């Protein structure tokens, strides 16, 4: 195939067009007769001028420079890059479900409200929470909503000194960033040798200024926090609340529930556990679930059922308010709802069981060749610490880049921060034994190459559309838009 390297602005030719609008009998008045001249645009909008075929070829060619789950194996740890079922896309495309204006009167949107109401109930059942808001647009947005609820809870009780959120050092960067955006101070605690919460360290920081603890379980190392009940009791005794980051939920559906572990508030990632596509970086969807004592703080509106009709209830005086326009990323809810219905109770449990089986199988095969810092059964993902032979001057980045040559998306690298040269591998349940074996073989082959021909790795990738990119140049020159020379 021919290599395609044009920006759309370079394809543009004056006078070409790709759009069509009908004849307009109401458009005789010139705009400057309707709107005063001083408000009208004089500068060039510089939008491209291309024909329809140019548009199609441009984006089709660009799509060929991308790698998605539909292209191949994508074991990007903590992102749960599972297969995105096509029927969900079809369902989200039903006109009667997606061509709905958010301010339509309640009697014209009963179907959509019912869907959201039922999704709330399903997520509550899956998580052991009492009520869900579907409003947050992504995981980080869910975290923010959850922490606002925690703050509102303490303020509502008149307990104004609770300004601290405890975050383990293994946490995703969003956890501390979110706590700061929600107006909290952050206390970071070190993990123990197994990457779990260090109970003694936790006890030392628990006091009457603690608002809550943010935790994922399984942890970012992919390990189940066996002491979770003890942790929950300690935090609760100190008057704090427990926040569950749902990033790793793919490991536990149908097996154990955050609500039963003692968490008070949590977020889901519909784009991870519940298969909605990642969209090249979004849209996601990050519903938040809470226990009964926090329901009154949920964002408005809450969907309620009154006399067999569904309504949007705004009349909630203790609500934290609105965190997003309208009701959330509804299109993602339709997909996740479809997914849950097509999985059913048994399918969901099989999903988590298989995700965990696949991860353990891979971990077991790879630990001979790569450094496995903590040797115990993992959940849906595991973290390697680079090559077993540390004397080799080959980094995790080099291994990741070499994987590109073999046609794989690499694992998450350099996270969590507590493992040096970290490689976080999450196979998910939608990959076959053959796919997993082929990836394992490639990883072993790369470990061999690292010994025999390290340069091959250091200069990788070799056969991708572009090779390693100068990130320093990008940041120093800061060219963030195209300009005509």
């Amino acid at each position, binding site marked *: 195939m021919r290599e395609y*390297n044009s*920006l759309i602005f370079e394809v543009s030719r004056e006078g*070409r067009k790709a*759009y069509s609008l009908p004849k*307009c009998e109401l*458009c005789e008045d010139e705009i400057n007769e*309707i709107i005063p001249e001083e408000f009208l*645009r004089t500068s*060039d*909008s510089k939008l491209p*001028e291309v024909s329809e075929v140019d*548009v199609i070829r441009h984006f*089709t060619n*660009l*799509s060929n*420079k*991308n*790698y998605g789950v*539909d292209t191949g194996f994508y074991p990007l740890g903590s992102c749960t890059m599972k297969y995105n*079922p096509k029927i969900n896309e079809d*369902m989200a495309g039903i*006109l009667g*479900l997606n*061509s709905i204006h*958010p301010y339509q009167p309640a009697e014209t949107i009963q*179907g959509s409200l019912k869907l959201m109401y039922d999704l709330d109930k399903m997520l509550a059942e899956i998580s052991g929470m009492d009520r869900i808001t579907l409003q947050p647009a*992504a995981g980080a947005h869910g975290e923010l909503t959850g922490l606002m609820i925690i703050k509102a809870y303490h303020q509502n009780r008149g307990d104004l000194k609770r300004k601290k959120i405890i975050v383990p050092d293994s946490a995703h*960067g*969003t956890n501390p*960033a979110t*706590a*700061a*955006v929600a107006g909290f101070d952050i206390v970071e605690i070190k993990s123990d040798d197994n990457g779990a919460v260090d109970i003694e360290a936790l006890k030392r920081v628990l006091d009457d200024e603690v608002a809550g603890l943010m935790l994922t379980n399984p942890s970012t190392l992919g390990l*189940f926090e066996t002491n979770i009940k003890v942790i929950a009791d300690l935090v609760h005794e100190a008057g704090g609340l427990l926040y569950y980051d749902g990033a790793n939920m793919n490991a*536990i559906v149908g*097996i*154990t529930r955050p609500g039963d572990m003692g968490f008070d508030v949590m977020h889901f990632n519909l784009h991870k556990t519940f298969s909605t596509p*990642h*969209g090249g*970086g*979004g*849209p996601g*969807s990050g519903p938040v679930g809470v226990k009964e004592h926090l329901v009154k703080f949920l964002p408005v509106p809450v969907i309620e059922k009154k006399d067999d009709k569904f309504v949007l209830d705004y009349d909630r005086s203790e609500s934290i*308010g*609105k965190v*997003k*326009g309208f009701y959330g990323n509804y299109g993602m809810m*339709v997909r996740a709802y479809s997914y849950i219905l097509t999985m*059913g109770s048994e399918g*969901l449990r099989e999903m988590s069981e298989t995700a*965990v*089986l696949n991860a353990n199988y891979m971990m077991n095969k790879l630990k001979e060749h790569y450094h496995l810092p903590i040797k115990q*059964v993992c959940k849906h993902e595991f973290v390697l610490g680079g090559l077993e032979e540390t004397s080799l001057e080959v980094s995790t980045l080099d291994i990741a880049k070499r994987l*590109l040559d073999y046609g794989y998306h690499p694992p998450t690298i350099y996270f969590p921060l507590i493992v040096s040269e970290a490689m976080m591998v999450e196979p998910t349940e939608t990959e076959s034994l053959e796919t997993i074996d082929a990836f394992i073989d490639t990883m072993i082959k790369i470990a061999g190459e690292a010994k025999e021909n390290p340069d091959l790795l250091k200069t990788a990738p070799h056969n991708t559309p572009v*090779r*390693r990119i100068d990130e320093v140049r990008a*940041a120093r020159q*800061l*060219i963030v*838009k195209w300009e005509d020379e």
Partner: protein
Amino acid sequence: MHRYIPNTEADKRQMLDSIGANSIEDLFEDVPSELRLGRNLNIGEALSEIELSNHMNALANENNSISDLICFLGAGAYDHHIPTTVKHLATRSEFYTSYTPYQPEISQGTLQIIFEYQTMISNLTGMDVSNASLYDGPTAAAEAAMMACASTKRKSIIVSKTVNPEIRKVLHTYMKFRDLELIEVDMNDGVTDVEKLKSMISKDTAGVMIQSPNFFGIIEDLTEVEKVTHENKALLISYTDPISLGILKSPGELGADIVVGEGQSLGTNLNFGGPYLGFLAATKKLARKMPGRIAGQSLDVDGKRAFVLTLQAREQHIRRYKANSNICSNQGLNALIATIYLVTMGKEGLREVAARSTQKAHYAFEELIKKRKFKPLFNKPFFKEFAVTSEFDSRMVNKALLKSGILGGYELGKAYPQYKNGLLFCVTEKRTKEEIDKLTGVMEVI
């Protein structure tokens, strides 16, 4: 055995043997028994494609979508035409099944599109730089407010009451929890009261947020606002409708420091409120204070042009609790849609969409006013939306319209008690003369 899970029982047995486990149960030995669910989830049995399809269509039948109704409702979500190229290109799964371009060598499609998106948003808004997008308009406004506070090291934002109430609600939530102050400035005849603004602004003001065209569709005169804002060393945050920029002066030309808005109109369907597209653009001086992803141009080791995420040291995964925003993703797919939309419409197409929406809205307005039952609420130049009032309850008017298959205007009384009977109508380029005549006809006989 589920269709999305390829491994058979035999495969699973082989894998367990390889691990040295007897059963799947062994892999969950670390989950204490008292935390086990110990029962099946109460979700029901898996549905087949046919069953799911029937179920979802039944739900759809309980809705009246705008494919059945003629839509004159706007107020922040708009029924503009979506060119067919959008559907055909945005459904390419190489785009939508990928994630954030962490590995740029195999993400040049996504990265170049972000770069093109940034270019077009910058040019349309008249700003130096744009980020790769945010969740939606209201959250983009909140991010802009926090960005203004961070970069001026001040703690107060003034927002006009002519800014969409939905946006102000989100702003209130964000500001309150971050211990920042939000002050609303009154309006006068449908536009921001500049005299009142002058009396409120001070050296504590981090930013002034004005929407134009504002919630009532009126084009705000920013000349005075810009002057007084910058005299106080505050930042001017402009919230705008990107379609309007096909004909209206760009916020950059008017002196804005940060421009935000809702990009749903650029090819994303109404989706009952989401996913939508927040955009954020700024002056070069503020580039490093912007939240979210940014794609930059660079070279690869062979000297070939290549794109990569840049300025990442601002972001949460590096700054952690010192980051200004906790955002980690962008609305990638919606930014792709907006890019396809803008490329398809091009310079002339966007101008035409904006012009026709204006012309048709003015026709609808004139027709309605002519009949005297409805009076204009304000007397100011407007874009594609206008507010009217009458002696009739606005809910009753909408009910009558709905009976005739028309989705009526936004009931202004919900957010502005002083305009109890007020209705805000929106007319896009999609509406025909026949449809507009039907609207005014039904309203005439109320």
